[in-house]
């Protein structure tokens, strides 16, 4: 039948069920009408043609039926989108500039927000993480050379542990490198020396085995292994070294010169704040001799009891610290600081992030300003087009809607580009800052739900800021003048654009100035005289355990081997690398001079170095002699001082040959 062929020729874009139904309805009508006409005597062909003529334009009819059922808003919206896409494609220059500007503005904000999200919004990976607190000590008076917050001394810790009611678990931790056997021979892995309750403080339980909290268990393992005792492995190390073998509990690993027994494995992803270590070893603190484990160099973590808060803990610990400072002479001048874990992790970064967020926010504003003026100009250029539309009957809201859709498309596309740019920027920032800054959750900085949501919100915001306003403006179409004249620039338009330009310039100047200042500080910082030559200097870190003689012999043996390597001019050891932020520090006094009234007024940083250090670092000696072989442990103790020391403590007499007493070691001669 001719009718069937007609059905097959249906244009493909009409696909909805209702549409097919309407088509079928009309087709039925055609056939019935043709039947009627045939009954009246027309030929088959004639009846068909006549029926079609009676029915009229079926395509139009079907569109009318379609229009009955679809919501006009959606139709118009789709129409606007198509039109906007076409008009954007026709102005590739404008579209490109707009997209780039948006990508930059949104991208910068997204990049910074990944950090903000990781630092402040992302939940910490521990159960009830807001109940975990970090305690630090705070010198009550400003002491020279001592920072505003310090790690915790075990003496204070044992008192806190006894007396604190706010915490259900308090623990100490310290990083220690561990020498163990790797696949290629001995290797050094990062380890953490932790007191009994550390895992309880974080609310984490081992995946396999047990943790250090059961005293009897620890002792049993110590006796059994005969070595350095039980250890707990991190998930990552367990995977690498034992291939994820569930029967790892009870196996031994090499530890230093002996071995240790694995008693547990931790769940994946666990780390202590920023410390991601491979092996955990237990710390036994003897309450009668807390100094045996070390001095003021421990991380202290605690878990609040259910009904305690950080504030209440702070008050209680303040009182306890005051008591302890009266009881323990070493703790005399120290108070306590209680921070939530998150506060601790973001300490020092908060203001930076805030400033950065402000800066990129301003950048986005400038971008919006640019886009607004671009669109405004474009809108003025379209006055004739808009005038025609208005004349044809488009209401003002209709025109605004269409222009707004254009802005929406621009900002959505720009937002997508900005998301990519932001991700790239974020990755770059992470790489750049990883070496310089120990950021709380750097490993977690990346695109996540929050960042995506933030970007989407930004897209909407930018649409509103730069889209609606020019749209509203451009739609103020004066019908007559717009159609007659081509591109008339109204007076009010000029004033708006001037305001925009002024605002943008002001913001840009602010940003440029701040950026310039920052750059200058950075350049100056990198030009500071170090006092030594860092070029071509390589550093290695290792921990050697044992008595003094063993350590000395091993160090010299290593030094000799290193010095024998081709390409090595000189080698040495030093206790703490310069500019690393860690030094040994303590008061001293000259022998033969009256004691100063304030015992702590003469303090100095001390570093233990091996001979050849100054040669290796390219430092020159002003007077006297360098360390030599005769200054090994059996000879008289000697020391070298720097110019600042001489200026401060011995300006009028020759320091060479004087003897000083120091707290850090036995008496030394100054050289």
């Amino acid at each position, binding site marked *: 039948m001719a009718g069937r062929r007609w059905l097959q020729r249906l244009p493909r874009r009409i696909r909805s069920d209702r549409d097919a*139904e*309407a088509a*079928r*309805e*009309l087709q*039925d*009508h055609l056939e*019935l*009408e043709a039947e*009627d006409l045939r009954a009246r005597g027309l030929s088959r062909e004639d009846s068909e043609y006549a029926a079609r*003529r*009676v*029915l*009229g*334009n*079926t395509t*139009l*009819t079907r569109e*009318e*039926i379609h*229009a*009955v*059922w679809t919501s006009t808003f959606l139709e118009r919206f789709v129409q606007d989108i198509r039109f906007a896409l076409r008009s954007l494609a026709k102005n590739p220059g404008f579209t490109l500039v707009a997209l780039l500007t948006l990508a930059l503005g949104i991208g910068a904000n997204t990049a910074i927000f990944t950090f903000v999200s990781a630092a402040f919004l992302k939940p910490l990976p521990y159960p009830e993480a807001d109940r975990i607190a970090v305690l630090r000590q705070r010198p009550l008076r400003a002491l020279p050379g001592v920072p505003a917050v310090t790690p915790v001394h075990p003496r204070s810790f044992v008192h806190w542990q006894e007396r604190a009611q706010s915490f259900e678990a308090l623990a100490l931790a310290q990083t220690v490198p561990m020498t163990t056997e790797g696949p290629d021979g001995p290797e050094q892995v990062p380890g953490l020396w932790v007191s009994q309750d550390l895992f309880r403080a974080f609310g984490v339980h081992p995946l396999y085995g047990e943790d250090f909290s059961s005293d009897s268990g620890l002792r049993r393992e110590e006796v059994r292994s005969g070595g350095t005792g039980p250890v707990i492995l991190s998930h990552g190390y367990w995977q690498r070294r034992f291939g994820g073998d569930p029967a790892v509990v009870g196996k031994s690993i090499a530890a230093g010169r002996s071995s240790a027994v694995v008693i547990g494995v931790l769940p994946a992803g666990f780390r202590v704040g920023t410390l991601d270590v491979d092996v955990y070893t237990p710390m036994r603190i003897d309450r009668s001799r807390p100094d045996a484990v070390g001095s003021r160099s421990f991380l202290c973590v605690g878990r609040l009891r259910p009904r305690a808060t950080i504030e209440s803990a702070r008050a209680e610990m303040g009182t306890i610290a005051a008591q302890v400072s009266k009881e323990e002479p070493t703790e005399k001048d120290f108070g306590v600081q209680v921070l939530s874990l998150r506060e601790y992790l973001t300490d020092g970064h908060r203001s930076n992030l805030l400033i950065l967020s402000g800066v990129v926010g301003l950048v986005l504003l400038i971008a919006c300003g640019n886009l607004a003026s671009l669109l405004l100009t474009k809108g003025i250029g379209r006055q004739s087009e808009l005038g025609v539309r208005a004349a044809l009957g488009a209401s003002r809201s209709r025109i605004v809607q269409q222009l707004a859709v254009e802005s929406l498309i621009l900002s959505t596309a720009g937002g997508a580009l900005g998301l990519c740019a932001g991700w790239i920027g974020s990755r770059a920032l992470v790489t750049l800052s990883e070496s310089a800054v120990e950021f709380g959750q750097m490993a977690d900085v990346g695109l996540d739900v929050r960042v995506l949501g933030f970007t989407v919100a930004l897209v909407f915001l930018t649409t509103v800021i730069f889209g609606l306003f020019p749209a509203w403006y451009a739609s103020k179409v004066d019908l007559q003048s717009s159609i007659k004249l081509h591109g008339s620039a109204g007076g009010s338009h000029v004033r708006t654009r001037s305001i925009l330009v002024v605002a943008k310039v002001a913001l840009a100047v602010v940003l440029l100035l701040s950026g310039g200042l920052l750059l200058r500080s950075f350049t100056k910082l990198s030009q500071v005289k170090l006092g030594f030559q860092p070029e071509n200097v390589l550093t290695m870190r290792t921990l050697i355990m044992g008595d003094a003689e063993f350590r000395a012999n091993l160090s010299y043996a290593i030094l000799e081997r290193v010095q024998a390597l081709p390409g090595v001019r000189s080698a040495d050891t030093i206790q703490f690398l310069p500019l690393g932020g860690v030094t040994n520090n303590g008061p001293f006094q000259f022998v033969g001079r009256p004691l100063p009234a304030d015992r702590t007024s003469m303090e100095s940083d001390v570093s233990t170095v091996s001979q050849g250090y100054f040669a290796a670092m390219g430092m020159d000696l002003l007077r006297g002699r360098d360390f030599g072989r005769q200054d090994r442990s059996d000879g008289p103790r000697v020391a070298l001082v720097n110019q600042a020391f001489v200026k401060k403590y011995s300006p009028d007499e020759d320091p060479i040959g004087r003897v000083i007493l120091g707290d850090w070691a036995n008496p030394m001669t100054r050289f």
Partner: protein
Amino acid sequence: MGRKQPASDRLELLQGTLDMLILQTLKSGPRHGHDIARYIQGTTDDLLQVEHGSLYPALHRLERKGWLAAKWEAPRDGNREFKYYRLTPAGRKQLSREESKWKQMSRAIAQVMWPAEEH
């Protein structure tokens, strides 16, 4: 509009009137689109030429407003399915509303055209 081929004697129906006629036609029972067109033409002896092209949009509009309900079914004497429209209770109410409106308007027009002797 280029799609129409009006014959000289045929009256063109306003959209509102077409709606009313459709509703009335369906008062006596469900019919499908062609049936409705044939009925109106037949009852008026072809005087009222229903624009077939506007019949179907009208039917769909009435269906969307809830005055008609539609169902694909086969007539008693056949096995081929057609889309049958029937009047809903809401449609009945609308019909009586339209009816009274139409009566009012025709009375008003008649008064202008043929003023009654009383006045």
